[in-house]
């Protein structure tokens, strides 16, 4: 085959290997992988066939990529914090902490992507579709929400479970009911409870094992300062500790319109409202840990645990959240309410956010149904009025 040296190298390589991967070629069973690589390197030059002759420049890749960019502050801070939370981490300088965390997190990111993307490619191949970009985001979220000490085989298993059971059996990206990343965490949470629960869950050699939520669930108070919780220098899953970094990412998502402000804001409002209600009804002299927990100022709930991370990166998943504007407000609000409710009353599950989001994922279609039904009723009423007139 004559090569055209005017073309850049990746293009030449892609063209060279095109026959190998296309139907009849030796590696035709890897066609979806080839196609994914092709669109990864070059914007598809496919032209419009039907309908609008020109199209907006935005596509799924760009949209998903924006979430990754929004995650960068959280990832970088999380890496540093892994080192900082080490027993001797405080003696490290900032780079030593970062490198320590970097090498802790990297294997888990690689494992998640390799396992997840292989399964995605396989399903795309079977369905004869292009590989979806959805896993770009899920694959980055999973290492950020599972404990850092999680063995890699468990991460791999959880990822496979999340992709196959959480997404592909429903029909793939866009059809899933539950957030795949949360499914991965739930899988570890329920299947390997013993290995990741208890006080020293987060770091094998952590300075202090207990997370603020763990403390609160047991005693109703926490020793964590709220400034630390805001900046993120506390123990916790890699992604969830720094509210500041999460809000930076959240700001980008809201500005670019990738995430819905309705969902994001209403989760925070829901948390504040429920926390506020607890503050009001808490007994003046709290006796039990739960009663003490109820006196925790409402705003502090938003800074602790995975609340902010869930609100910004999990609840806003467009596929599993509500799809109507009104539904987004309702579902977001309920997530905030439930997260705080579970935290305070169900001490067995200190992190209410995960359960709240998964529960509302399941209820979102119902909420949407009633919102859409209101539109249908409006239309039917209008029709009746028109006939009578």
């Amino acid at each position, binding site marked *: 085959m004559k090569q055209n040296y005017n073309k850049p190298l990746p293009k030449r390589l892609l063209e060279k290997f095109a026959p190998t991967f296309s139907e009849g070629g030796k590696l035709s069973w890897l066609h979806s992988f080839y196609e994914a690589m092709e669109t990864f390197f070059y914007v598809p030059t496919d032209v419009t066939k039907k309908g609008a*002759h020109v199209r907006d420049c*935005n596509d799924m*890749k760009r949209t998903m990529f924006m979430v990754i960019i929004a995650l960068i502050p959280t990832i970088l801070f999380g890496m540093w914090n892994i080192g900082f939370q080490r027993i001797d981490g405080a003696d490290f300088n900032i780079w030593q902490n970062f490198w320590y965390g970097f090498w802790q997190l990297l294997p888990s990111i690689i494992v998640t992507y390799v396992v997840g993307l292989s399964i995605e490619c396989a399903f795309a191949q079977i369905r004869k579709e292009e590989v979806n970009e959805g896993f770009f985001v899920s694959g980055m979220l999973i290492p950020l929400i599972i404990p850092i000490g999680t063995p890699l085989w468990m991460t791999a298993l959880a990822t496979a479970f999340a992709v196959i059971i959480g997404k592909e059996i429903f029909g793939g990206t866009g059809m899933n009911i539950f957030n795949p990343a949360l499914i991965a965490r739930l899988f570890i949470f329920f299947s390997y409870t013993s290995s990741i629960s208890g006080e020293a869950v987060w770091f094998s050699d952590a300075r202090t094992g207990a997370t603020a939520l763990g403390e609160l669930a047991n005693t109703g108070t926490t020793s964590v300062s709220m400034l630390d919780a805001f900046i993120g220098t506390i123990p916790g899953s890699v992604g969830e500790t720094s509210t500041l970094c999460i809000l930076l990412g959240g700001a980008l998502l809201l500005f670019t319109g990738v995430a819905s402000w309705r969902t994001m804001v209403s989760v925070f409002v829901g948390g504040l409202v429920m926390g506020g209600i607890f503050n009001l009804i808490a007994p003046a002299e709290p006796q039990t840990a739960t009663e003490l927990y109820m006196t925790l100022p409402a705003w502090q709930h938003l800074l602790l645990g995975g609340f902010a991370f869930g609100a910004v990166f999990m609840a806003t998943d467009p596929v599993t959240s509500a799809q109507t504007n009104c539904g987004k407000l309702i579902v977001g609000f309920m997530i905030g309410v439930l997260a705080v409710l579970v935290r305070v009353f169900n001490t067995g599950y200190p992190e209410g956010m995960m359960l709240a989001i998964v529960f509302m994922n399941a209820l979102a279609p119902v909420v949407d149904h009633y919102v859409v039904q209101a539109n249908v009723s409006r239309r039917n009423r209008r029709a009746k009025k028109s006939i009578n007139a």
Partner: protein
Amino acid sequence: MRILREKTETERYFKQQTNNLFTYLPILTDMSKVIKLKKGLDIKLVGEAEKSVIELPIGERYAISPLTFEGVVPKLLVTEGDKVLAGDALFYDKAHPEVMFTSPVSGTVSAVRRGAKRKLLAIEVAADAQQNYKPFKTNLAEATREEVVATLLESGLWATIIQRPYGIIADSKDTPKAIFVSGFDTAPLAPDMNIALKDDLQAVQAGFEALKKLCSNVHLSLKAGEKSILEAIEGVEKHYFAGAHPAGNVGVQIHHIDPVNKGEKVWTVGIQNVAIIGRLFTEGKVNMVKTYAVTGSQVAHPQYVRCLVGSSLCDVLMPARIKPQGGGSTFRLIEGNVLSGVKATANDYVGIYSSQVTVIPEGGELELIGWLAPRFHKLSVSRTYFSWLRPKKTYDLRTVLNGGVRPCVVTGLYEKYLPMDIYPMYLFKAIMAGDIEKMENLGIYEIVEEDVALCEFVDPSKQELQALVRDGINLMIKEM
């Protein structure tokens, strides 16, 4: 930011209003009637038509294509070599034999073009140098409704009357709830009706008189804050719309004036076709002359061209000229606008429903890792790109899809570009599922393809939503 933009739009609107204060008083009195649409998008493209009109002489060849008419199964009435007058029927609709489709010129039927499975593509007529017209009665004032209907059917102009729901040619046995005409077009590079209709005002008035014989309830929508020559039209109910595209779509206007409910029918007519109907009743002949805006970045001299319906695109493009294409690049010829027009070739002919021809560059450029690069020069409604920084920039858009086809992931986006009380994603999903009852409940009666064209434009999943809506409508027609 969204709120800010809306504010400036409102400000601009009021500024225009005050500018018009002294020049045009009637607008002030109608201020209370203005319907403001906040949703939508004006796509600013390179290649707007200059405000000059070139009149084409009679060309060599004209043609009518049955494909222009949605849902029509053509039955030929002529064969090659037949002599026809302007206004003589060429074919009729099998399901509605009373609906005739007529020749725009007098001459000889020169070719009957057929495609695969002998599908009728076009009937070509070689035009006489001296045009002869089939005579029609002009006594509009005394004519009864039945006589007007019969004249329209016989003259072939009944086909200009489109029924909602479904966007198909109206049934002549029906009496609609109302007739709607949009007096402006907001599509990208759309013709300015003040220029397109500048010599047609009397014909438009006569056309409205004829439409009022069909249904007393006739609505004309105009752009708020702009001086329109159609202000002079009398005897119709006028409405004023403010906002971006698709504010000029008659479907959107109907939704806000008097929406179509289940079991109801309304009719729509393009404003230039109202003029053609008017000429039928004043001149007593079928004179299908229209003004087409020849636009787009690949047109050397974008301008208005006045010619007969059925003119070849070659002739229509002749005065404006297509820019020379270098380096193996090609162009796409579109009959209509870039959002809802039809892909055409220079051998095709302009149809009766369009009033615009657009030429844009075909295909894309090779871009390494485009999803990662900033791509400052690209147009997107999403702020993941930077076009929001330059809201006034005009773009030379190409025909690339800009991404791969994906399932619906992003939510809440379609809603922003369909100014109707409809949940578009739910409607689309109902169509995909073929659920008649849901489609009906969710508003299939109120939309046609062009109304969802913007949804299709902005869709990051790159789905073919206009084709989907047509499939849904066809399913409704079949099942109901």
